[in-house]
């Protein structure tokens, strides 16, 4: 049964609240960043659609970094630990962040993961976000740079379909370019789309299979 209350105008109160809904996460992200900065650790948020090649890219970057610096990986995954196991095979500390039904990582989860590892002497943490090209844009984690991985297998128009993701990124990796011809996708045109949204952003074409662009991505992240 529905009950209706009708108020006379003098009974209605209208209070200005000005409460930001994204601020709670943003505050925790700043806290994470301050903690990371105090240890001189650079955290990189790796975002991208499901199947864009985030885990493979992270694995390739770890291969290039692990003998030079102490590095760690946070692996966001809804349920399984397959990806985390793959990275852990390289002998670096891995924290799996299982979001269960959550579609993005948030600063609170990353803050908890930061308690799980020793930050002493650590140079970099690669944070692999949940495969999703929409939600993570709203939730900064406290990273120094946000990387978006977009692969040619996602088609020609992924950038213009998900502009928010790219507007908030610091680096865009166009992955699987060895498959561009087979997919009939033009890498230059994908790159132009990114620059149309954000003229100053670095875009690096990569192939985790051939190794193309991976040194450049590594160097760019180390300079972040």
């Amino acid at each position: 049964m529905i009950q209706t209350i009708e108020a006379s105008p003098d009974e209605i109160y209208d209070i200005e609240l000005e409460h930001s809904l994204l601020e709670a996460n943003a505050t925790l992200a700043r806290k994470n960043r301050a903690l990371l900065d105090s240890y001189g650790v650079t955290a990189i948020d790796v975002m991208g659609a499901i199947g864009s090649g985030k885990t493979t890219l992270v694995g390739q970057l770890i291969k290039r970094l692990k003998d030079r610096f102490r590095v760690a990986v946070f692996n966001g995954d809804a349920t399984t630990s397959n990806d985390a196991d793959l990275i852990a095979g390289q002998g670096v500390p891995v924290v799996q962040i299982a979001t269960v039904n959550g579609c993005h990582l948030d600063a609170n989860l990353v803050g908890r993961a930061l308690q799980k590892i020793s930050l002493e002497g650590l140079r970099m943490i690669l944070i692999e976000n949940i495969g999703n090209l929409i939600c993570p844009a709203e939730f900064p984690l406290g990273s120094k740079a946000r990387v978006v991985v977009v692969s040619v297998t996602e088609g020609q128009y992924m950038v213009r379909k998900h502009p928010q993701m790219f507007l908030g990124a610091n680096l865009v990796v166009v992955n699987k370019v060895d498959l561009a011809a087979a997919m009939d996708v033009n890498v230059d045109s994908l790159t132009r789309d990114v620059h149309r949204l954000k003229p100053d952003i670095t875009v690096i074409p990569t192939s985790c299979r051939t190794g193309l662009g991976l040194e450049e991505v590594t160097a760019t992240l180390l300079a972040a």
Partner: protein
Amino acid sequence: MHELSIASAVVEKVLGFAQVRDIKKILSVRLAVGELSAVEPEQLRFCYTAITQQTAMEDSVLEIETVEVVVRCPRCSYRGPPKYWSDALSAAPIPTLECPTCGWAVEPAEGNDCAIKSVKFI
């Protein structure tokens, strides 16, 4: 579906506000959603209706106002609406971070937040 996270944050905040003031009935909640925030109003309304049931917010109206993007250019000091990308095959023109006057990369100054503006109650 981060709209559910956003809707939950609204409900948590407003019910907390209502409880402290012993308010029994919320009539409406007004949100200001930035054009740059990836929040889809229809999904937000759906989540809001679902999770406000059997609370002091049940049947309350969710009013959503859009906050347009304002950008500022560090090079030419432009401040105003962004340059829009209108032929991108999307339903609506996409705001970009390219300066409309000098082509440099601009910073968003407004339109990337999502906030509760006001609450109406009896």
